């Protein structure tokens, strides 16, 4: 009897007992930056819980949007500054702010709340780790140099400085990497610079861009690049603890007040990628058939137009080109049967046998007709967004997929644009400028607006376009849909609001 009583009391007091220890409660925040190693333990109100999480989510969504639009780091920092100040301010120790501990507590708690919300699936975890890393990098760069140094030292990362003797031996190699990365002015003498020797796996981004000298598996990292080391460490630790959170989640001892909040938070963080499913973007009344693709191709964005032209010219496309194009066609509502017909007739130089053996399966796989359980249940892959096309699988030799505004040089791009009827020198010049500034979306939208100038004006005058239909296009299928609706305005009114899912 006694024992049961004890147990019951324990259950009741569980939270109190766990959090009662004042040693936990008084979390100190000596640094502005935080590796989020220890979870928070103090009590906060439910309103704070929700509000802090939402504020952080706003910041993260905005950072992600910057990366989607391919903003340079400096631009992102500029864009984020007011947003960070509004929702998630973090002042430095040297500032005279009295809010230091409150700000840091909010930063700390909101991070952990979102961890709970975004650890359930692998996709969410990856995405959360990616945006949190971006936020960390942003803050790290903005930090006061001395405080940054103190923070880095507090992390106790073991780095081995390169002895002078070895430095002299490889001086010319070190010099070459340093000058090519930071310019001649930055470095006059290798002797004055401290280098660290670390396993190359600890500075992957520096290795990938050939910014450090490598020898026998060791990277020689100048002190300047501490950032890369720290950020990699941050991501690695965060990914690991997210996995642990995911494992602990089902056993999470919490009441039913939090679950709906967490659920709601994670739903508001849907990947823009996932926003397009075949049915959602199909247009009523449009004849989407294999035979009609040539005709429909006038509404395609350049990335698909180029693929279509290549296909018509060569009667074949390479793997990623097929994938990008197939998924787009699926997105505009082409059925699997029609899609197979389309490719079969387009690949007119190969035998039925070769087509069936080597290609048919892949098209069916993309539609989710074959493959593993999850592929079939998910209806295959979703059509690629601009983000995906811009950043993944840059075209290699002989390949024509990707984003023409990014992956083609200006001369070839101009030829393609002129073939689509963009001959106005002002527009071409604008595209060139956008391309140079790496604003590929702007270039694409510029071309869209030029090609649909008349219809857009009419639509605006008549007020038939909703606000969301005038937003920047960030998905090839959205381009097609808008183009089709505009050009057929007389026949079919643009029906409904085009739903753009986003953070």
């Amino acid at each position, binding site marked *: 009897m006694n024992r049961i009583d004890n147990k019951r009391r324990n259950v009741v007091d569980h939270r109190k007992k766990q959090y009662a220890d004042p040693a936990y409660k008084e979390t100190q925040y000596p640094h502005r930056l935080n590796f989020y190693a220890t979870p928070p333990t103090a009590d906060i109100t439910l309103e704070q819980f929700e509000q802090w999480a939402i504020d952080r989510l706003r910041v993260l969504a905005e950072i992600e949007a910057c990366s989607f639009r391919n903003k340079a780091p400096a631009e992102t920092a500029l864009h984020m500054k007011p947003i960070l100040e509004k929702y998630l301010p973090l002042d430095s120790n040297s500032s005279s702010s009295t809010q230091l501990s409150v700000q840091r507590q909010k930063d700390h708690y909101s991070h952990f709340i979102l961890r709970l919300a975004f650890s359930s699936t692998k996709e969410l975890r990856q995405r959360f780790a990616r945006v949190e890393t971006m936020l960390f990098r942003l803050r790290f760069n903005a930090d006061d140099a001395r405080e940054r140094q103190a923070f880095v030292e507090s992390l106790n990362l073991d780095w081995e400085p390169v002895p002078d003797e070895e430095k002299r031996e490889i001086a010319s*190699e070190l*010099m*070459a*990497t340093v*000058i*090519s*990365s930071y310019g001649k002015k930055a470095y006059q003498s290798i002797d004055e610079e401290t280098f660290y020797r670390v396993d*190359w*796996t600890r500075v*992957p*981004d520096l*290795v*990938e*861009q*050939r910014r450090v*000298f*490598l*020898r*026998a*598996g*060791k990277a020689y990292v100048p002190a300047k690049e501490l950032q890369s080391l720290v950020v990699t460490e941050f991501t690695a630790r965060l990914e690991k603890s997210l996995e642990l959170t995911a494992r602990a989640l089902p056993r999470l001892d919490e009441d039913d007040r939090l679950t709906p909040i967490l659920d709601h938070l994670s739903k508001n963080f849907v990947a823009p990628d996932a926003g397009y499913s075949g049915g959602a973007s199909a247009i009523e009344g449009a004849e989407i058939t294999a035979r009609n693709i040539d005709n429909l191709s006038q509404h395609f964005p350049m990335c698909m137009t*180029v693929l279509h032209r290549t296909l018509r010219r060569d009667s074949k496309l390479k793997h990623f080109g097929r994938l990008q194009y197939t998924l787009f066609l699926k997105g505009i509502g082409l059925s699997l049967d029609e899609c197979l017909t389309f490719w079969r007739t387009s690949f007119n130089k190969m035998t039925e046998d070769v087509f069936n*053996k080597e290609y048919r399966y892949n098209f069916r796989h993309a539609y989710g007709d074959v493959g593993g359980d999850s592929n079939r249940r998910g209806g295959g892959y979703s059509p690629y967004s601009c983000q995906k096309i811009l950043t993944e*699988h*840059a*075209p*290699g*030799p*002989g*390949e*024509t*997929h*990707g984003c*023409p505004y990014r*992956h*083609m*040089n*200006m*001369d*070839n791009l101009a030829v393609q644009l002129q073939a689509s009827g963009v001959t106005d020198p002002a527009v071409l010049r604008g595209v060139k400028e956008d391309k140079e500034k790496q604003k590929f979306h702007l270039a694409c939208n510029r071309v869209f607006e030029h090609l649909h100038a008349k219809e857009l004006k009419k639509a605006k005058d008549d007020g038939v376009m909703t606000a969301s239909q005038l937003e920047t296009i960030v998905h090839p299928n959205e381009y097609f849909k808008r183009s089709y609706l505009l050009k057929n305005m007389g026949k079919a009114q643009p029906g409904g609001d085009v739903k753009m899912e986003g953070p």
Partner: protein
Amino acid sequence: MTSGAGGVKLEDLFDMGSDDDEFPSSAVPVKKEASGSPDLIPSSPPDAGPAQHSGSDPELLRTFYQRLFPWRYFFQWLNHSPQPTLDFEHRELSFMLSNDAVMRYQSYRTSDLLRKDVLRLMPTRIEIGPVYSTNPRERKLLQNAANFRPIAKELCFDIDLTDYDDIRTCCDKANICNKCWQFMTMAVKVITAALREDFGFKHIMWVYSGRRGIHAWISDKGARTLDDSKRKVIAGYLEVIVGGAQSGKRVNLRRPLHPHLTRSIDLLKSHFQEDVLEAQDPWRSSERAEKLLQLLPDRELRDALKRKWDASPGRSSSLKWSDIDQVAKTVTNKNFDSKALLDAKQDIVLEYTYPRLDINVSKKLNHLLKSPFVIHPGTGRVCVPVDPKTFEDFDPLSVPTIQQLIHEIDSWTEPEVKSEKAVLDWEKTSLKPYIDYFRTHVNAIMRDERDIKVKRERDGEDGESW
């Protein structure tokens, strides 16, 4: 540290001794067959004309798998130890059968079991996948599908001559000759140097893919356990020629050049002169020379060169290449940047010589890649491993075909002086040097793997004694 050359030699002897006893039974009937056809002269080279290539003739294939495929070394190569381990047992092998059906997620405990199943199924192609966290055959029995994930695979590279179509003039598509094969020699030199010197990998094996390409397999433990993101990093580090068919100038590098690129240019310079300018002569026609002009800076220089070349059509690429510097001296433009020209020339050398990797093969842990020693169905040639040290002497067109090999076994006659051991079938054929190399390579891997283990055990003991 202390296990010096002495220990190494012992291991070699041990391995070779046990290997040579493998499948002695298959050697016995061969000798009978060979003596049954004494009229065949062993020294005469068998007819390997392209007309009779059919790599997937089931009878030939059966004999090949039965008597020539080096099952044991293959097993040790993937297993990293003479005793069966999970490295092999959980490894996915995939078979393509003669009806083009693909059987994925096959796995075996030992080389004998694998051999038996291959002889039963007679796949025309064997592909190698990753080692999984659980046995691939049992993946459907798992409650949680997340427990079935790839954990290790050799780091692989794939280079294909079709990717050189825009710069080679001798052949195109699937065709190759000794002229364009030099691109592969260059690729092997550059990639091997980078992997060894920069990343510190030791166990690098190049395999001829049977027709027009080569694969690299890196078996160091550190390379096998790399995750996808790290593989992508290596791929990015090595990738220099970027962009598709329409992206214009495809080599864009920061200056000064990274030490890896400086070294690559040193390795490639002489090849550029001999194998590109002279052998390929890529800019002889004026349309092709136009491409060269586009890669050069400064309009005045380009115009002057164009005039000069239009005046003497058919000027060779070597001459055109040296014209660039000649004409550059006469350029009067004050803003002319001789450094930019030098950089552009370096970029051109790289664009025409630097390896063009099929990078997607290297990026993913679970990418399947064709196994060494299978028969290419189109050419009938064996996918043989090649020592990077002697890659320059390697001639893809003289790689033995399956027909030739079977013929060689048949026409083998016993030497006057009998050796004590039975002669294995592959030792009677021109496959021998390739299998010898493979065995040396595999032994080196196993030796390293064992040293790691021994070291760990020793460290463990030290820890306890403290």
